[in-house]
């Protein structure tokens, strides 16, 4: 556990965050991670649905022409 | 509408579940608290107002999904919809019926259970007043939630998720009134806010409930 705190202290002193370095860092990491996750999930779902739609349209177009 | 109210009350009595269920649950929760929290009087006195209110709220929540579910299953809803009774009237009556079968008994039983939690003597009138003013709002909000989830299979859990945030203002003002009362302070402000919310619910929610019913009947 002390390894972790030493790393965090090293980063926070490097960034000049002073006493509450851990807090500021953790809030940034968590928030940005959540935003990134939201964007990633939305993008992945968009792609999946677009592909699905293309497949359905193709299948139905064949059955109409066929 | 009186006919509908009378029928619902008769059904509740006949089915036996109506009155007993809410009360039994209320009693169980109250009895369990000291086992969980410990028997010391000072602790119990401090948490009694909040616990009584939360238990009353959960007891009301328990019987919400039965409000429309029974009528939905045996087809009474479409028949009521095409009767001269406006759906808003049906919603209002269902709310009042639910209050009479669960809210009222809870309000009357609460002081008796207050002893179990060593509630401060000064708080009893406020407990009675706040529950009398607050539980009707719980029933009407619950009826609205029940109308939203009537068409959904196993809608009970969803119903509680939808209704709990709506219960927050009533719970806060209700418990606050009792707490202020037990400290001997004047609790007119929370009681006024509580009755404000209740009146507001009975003004707005029957229309929202009827709209939800109409949609679910489509």
């Amino acid at each position, binding site marked *: 556990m002390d390894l972790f705190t030493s790393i965090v202290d090293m980063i926070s002193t490097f960034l000049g965050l002073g006493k509450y370095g851990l807090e500021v860092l953790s809030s940034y990491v968590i928030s940005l991670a959540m935003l990134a996750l939201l964007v990633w999930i939305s993008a992945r779902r968009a792609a999946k649905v677009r592909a699905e739609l293309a497949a359905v349209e193709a299948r139905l177009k064949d059955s109409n022409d066929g | 509408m*009186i*006919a*509908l109210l009378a*029928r619902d009350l*008769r*059904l509740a009595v*006949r*089915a036996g579940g109506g009155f007993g269920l809410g009360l039994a649950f209320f009693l169980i929760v109250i009895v369990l608290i000291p086992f969980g929290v410990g028997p010391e009087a000072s602790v119990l006195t401090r948490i009694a107002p909040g616990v009584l209110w939360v238990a009353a709220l959960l007891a009301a929540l328990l019987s919400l999904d039965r409000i429309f579910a*029974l*009528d939905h*299953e*045996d*087809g*009474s809803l*479409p*028949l*009521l*919809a*095409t*009767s*001269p*009774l406006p759906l808003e009237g049906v919603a209002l009556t269902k709310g009042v019926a639910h209050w009479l079968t669960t809210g009222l008994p809870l309000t009357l039983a609460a002081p008796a259970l207050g002893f179990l939690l060593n509630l401060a003597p000064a708080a009893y009138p406020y407990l009675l007043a706040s529950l009398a003013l607050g539980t009707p709002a719980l029933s009407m909000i619950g009826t609205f939630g029940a109308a939203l989830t009537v068409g959904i299979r196993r809608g009970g859990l969803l119903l509680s998720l939808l209704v709990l945030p709506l219960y927050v203002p009533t719970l806060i003002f209700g418990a606050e009134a009792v707490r202020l009362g037990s400290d001997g302070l004047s609790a007119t402000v929370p009681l006024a806010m509580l009755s404000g919310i209740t009146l507001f619910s009975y003004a707005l929610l029957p229309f929202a409930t009827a709209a939800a019913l109409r949609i679910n*009947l*489509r």
Partner: protein
Amino acid sequence: MMLTVENVTCARGGMPVLSGVSFALDAGQALVLRGPNGCGKTTLLRTLAGLQSPLAGSVTFPEDEGAYASHADGIKAQLSVTENLSFWADVHGRPMPDDVFTSFDLDDLRDRLAGTLSAGQKRRLGLARLGVIGRKVLFLDEPTVSLDGFSVRMFADFLRDKHLAQGGVAVIATHIDLGLDAPEMDLTPFKADHTATGGSDEAFL
């Protein structure tokens, strides 16, 4: 004209099911709807009764005279036969006609709890409800389900003698022959095909 239906299009689940349905019924007339299961009989009846709004066309009948009844007949098991009927009479603000028990052969079941009735008796109680509410325009969806021959004839007699004779109108969706000399209408020609517009899905197609 008691009930006029002009060019009604009704939808189910965002898709038009029936389109261009038109007919008119004068006082004392009945109409039997025929058609395969799922062709939209129930949807049409619910639209006519006003439970859902039609996509197009119009349905006109005297205000507050419509009543919809399906095989789920709103009978409360814990209430007795009389209580069930008197409830619906009160809701509709009408006095309880005493002959309803005899015309539906429920005389000896007056105080029996509805829960203890057989399926046939329960259906008769449901149909007796129609007699009690005294509505002129009836929309009946498969009213004779789980009824034996005798009860079906009794229902047909009630419709002919009590309801239609007093100037009532009825639209009935059923598969069996009710013995009424009412005209029949097959819904298959009104089935909405690809070109039918309307319905909420259209915006996405």
